[in-house]
């Protein structure tokens, strides 16, 4: 297609610049979400009564449509990247908190007892035993959160060019250049698949004791779908 990479100058970015912007706008919320979820999930594991209300609150927040969330935030944070990144951070919680809680809870009692018997304190036991065993569950959550975050950033285009590659979709509409929309959709899909693959590699590196190859693939089932809007 002609002009596939001819990015309109009003975006003030090259194609690669848009990709970088998109990665930042989608990646930072997932990181922030992980930083919030880790202590929150640990609290939920410790205090069992806290888990249902936390789940309830995150589900309700997740139900708020992104566009509605964005426009309400404009009043406080203006038409900035932050306005896009705050809702995305909030959305990741509904995926990451249950993933971490289930992962940490799935650590067998004997393993914890063995760690305690070896003289591990609660902090060291958490960091060196419980967290590593929970890594597959956490990464599974991170994969869903990252991929849906990449897709959601583009909605930011609707509140005034805060959507990175989404702005390209907006321009495709304004200038009637469908090839730009094709470019944006393909780029985002490729970014999402690359990020997904990267997280799988990270999991393989972090869990060298897990079976790899054909055996693991057979055991792998599609994780329950929560996100992607």
């Amino acid at each position, binding site marked *: 297609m002609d002009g596939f990479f001819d990015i309109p100058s009003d975006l003030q970015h090259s194609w690669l610049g848009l990709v970088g912007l998109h990665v930042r706008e989608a990646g930072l919320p997932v990181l922030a979400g992980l930083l919030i979820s880790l202590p929150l999930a640990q609290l939920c594991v410790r205090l069992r009564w806290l888990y249902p209300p936390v789940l309830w609150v995150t589900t309700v927040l997740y139900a708020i449509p992104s566009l509605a969330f964005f426009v309400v935030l404009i009043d406080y944070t203006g038409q900035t990247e932050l306005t896009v990144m705050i809702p995305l951070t909030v959305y990741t919680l509904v995926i990451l908190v249950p993933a971490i809680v289930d992962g940490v809870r799935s650590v067998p009692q004997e393993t914890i007892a063995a760690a305690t018997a070896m003289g591990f304190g609660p902090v060291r036991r958490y960091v060196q035993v419980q967290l590593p065993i929970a890594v597959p569950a956490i990464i599974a959550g991170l994969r869903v959160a990252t*991929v849906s975050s990449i897709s959601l950033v583009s909605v930011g285009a609707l509140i005034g060019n805060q959507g990175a590659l989404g702005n390209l979709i907006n321009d495709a509409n304004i200038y009637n250049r469908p090839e730009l929309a094709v470019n944006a*959709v393909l780029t985002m899909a490729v970014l999402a698949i690359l990020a997904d693959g990267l997280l799988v590699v990270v999991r393989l590196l972090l869990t060298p004791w897990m079976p790899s190859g054909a055996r693991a693939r057979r055991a*792998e089932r599609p994780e329950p*779908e929560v996100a992607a809007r």
Partner: protein
Amino acid sequence: MNILNFINAFFSDSAHWQGYDGIPTRLGEHVQYTLEALAIAAAIGLPVGLATGHYGRGGNALAFIAVAGRALPTFGLLVLMTLSLGFGLINVMIPLVVLAVPPILVTTYEAMRSVDPAPVDAARGMGMHDVEVLFRVELPVALPLILGGLRSAAIQIVSTATIAAYVSLGGLGRYIVDGLYQRNYEKVVGGAALVALMALATLALFWGVTRLTVSRGVLRSN
């Protein structure tokens, strides 16, 4: 509170309650789109999910569909469809259905797979056919999770139908998109409040449906 003033101004203006751009019309449109897209997606996703889950096959294909469905940005798909096929309800329905099928499909499959095999074996031992096992044993046990999948699909449709106002669709998103263009912040915030309320109402509706349709024994054991 700035936002609350805007919301109050929006809802107390009687002009917003009647006519083509009135709240009842827009709300009705939004509900209609949501129901249509959800019905089509469920008609595709539920049977396939139930069948694959019952026979325990095709998990890898479903995992692939799930990743592909998530990776495709819906906003981009919406604009692309409209740009290449022109304005029209069907062109907007396709991305909404594409968006809603993966969660229904994958969750239904997962729900069927997670049913305890012991009662299924018992049912077979009692001489039930495949169809009976599916509808009288597996489906009732898997129902809470299946409804969860339908709920997440419904919520995604509600929020994406909002975005679809950008490409000509009516519904509550009109207030947000038009308000942003007109720099009428009262309209934007009012529309956002309505959409958020509708999403929460969807959540509440599914909670109620779960209470009513899931057998008490299953509810208790969860």
